């Protein structure tokens, strides 16, 4: 199971995510008129136990925006924010506007929509892939319930999961936010084969 990808293939995937994530960061930066930084993306195989130990405890209540993709990169994007990050971002987005939970949620939804679409478009252009994105949905639930269900709904049944994760900062504030991509089975192999 640990031999699913070679070091070289992982480098390629990392580069692809870097391109997508970088484009997304640029679009955010323009939208917010602030400097947005992105950490070097994580591509790692972990067991669920390790994910909940190292990334976030399973019972942490988070806000998550789900966007399904289809075509050459079928799967699900999941943008995860803890409550602190959610408040941070909505304050940033709604400066000067009256704040309600509903408006805050829809602003974050739209932000993630822009982020993911920029991510996907950059990859699609780079690799000449055909990728469609669906409408975003925002929800609030336990990190563990969302993450396990996302992998299981996309037919990822292994003991370990491949975590594709990007983290963003606005200026000096690290948002407590991460973007996960849960690929459908075989999709990554297809993407890797296109690069060779």
């Amino acid at each position, binding site marked *: 199971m640990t031999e699913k990808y070679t070091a070289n293939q992982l480098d390629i995937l990392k580069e692809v995510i870097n391109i997508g994530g970088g484009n997304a960061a640029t679009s955010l930066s323009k939208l917010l008129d602030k400097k947005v930084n992105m950490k070097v993306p994580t591509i790692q195989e972990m067991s*669920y*136990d390790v994910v*909940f130990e190292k990334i976030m405890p*399973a*019972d942490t*209540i988070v806000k998550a925006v*789900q966007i*399904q993709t*289809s075509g050459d990169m079928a799967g*699900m994007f999941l943008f995860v924010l803890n409550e602190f990050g959610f408040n941070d971002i909505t304050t940033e987005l709604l400066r000067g506007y009256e704040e309600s939970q509903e408006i805050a949620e829809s602003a974050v939804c739209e932000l993630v929509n822009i982020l993911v679409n920029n991510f996907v478009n950059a990859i699609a252009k780079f690799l000449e892939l055909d990728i469609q994105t*669906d409408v975003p*949905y925002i*929800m*609030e*639930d*336990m*990190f*563990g*319930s*969302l993450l*396990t*269900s*996302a992998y*299981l*709904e996309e037919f990822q*049944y292994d*003991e370990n999961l491949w975590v594709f994760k990007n983290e963003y900062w606005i200026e000096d504030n690290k948002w407590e936010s991460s973007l996960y991509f849960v690929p459908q089975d075989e999709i990554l192999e297809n993407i890797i084969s296109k690069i060779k």
Partner: protein
Amino acid sequence: MQEEAIKVGIGDYKVANSPHSLITVALGSCVGIALYDPVSKVGGLSHIMLPDSTAFRGEKKVEKFADLAIPSLVEELLKIGASSKLEAKIAGGASMFKLKNTIAKEQIGQRNIAAVKKVLAEMQIPIVGEHTGEDYGRTMWLDLEDLTVRIRTAQRQYLNL
């Protein structure tokens, strides 16, 4: 509950006896199965992820699949002093996401619930409490002292089964 509950991980199960309690967090599409003998108060809590192991080849983790985990848990309970008159309370099996091109009954949560019910029916174990389906996560405790199952939903609502 005075003492720390024994933690059951995702895709795992554990057994214990009164006055201990067991907990499993963050059930989404997964199903939690509390199984106990009401007389001896010996019981176990299982957190299954998938309905059916027969669709998979190669090495399988027993605790992950409804069809393997439940019989294996029952066997372990009998070994540590449970009678064969067991009862079950189940929770979870949510459909967490709005998925395009997937009809509701094909979602993994619904398939997990159906599989758990089928296995319990085959083993003639009655389900005496249930809180399943919907679209939110749940945390589940089994208190072996008073045999209640406590559910906390992601919206921080509590209920007892």
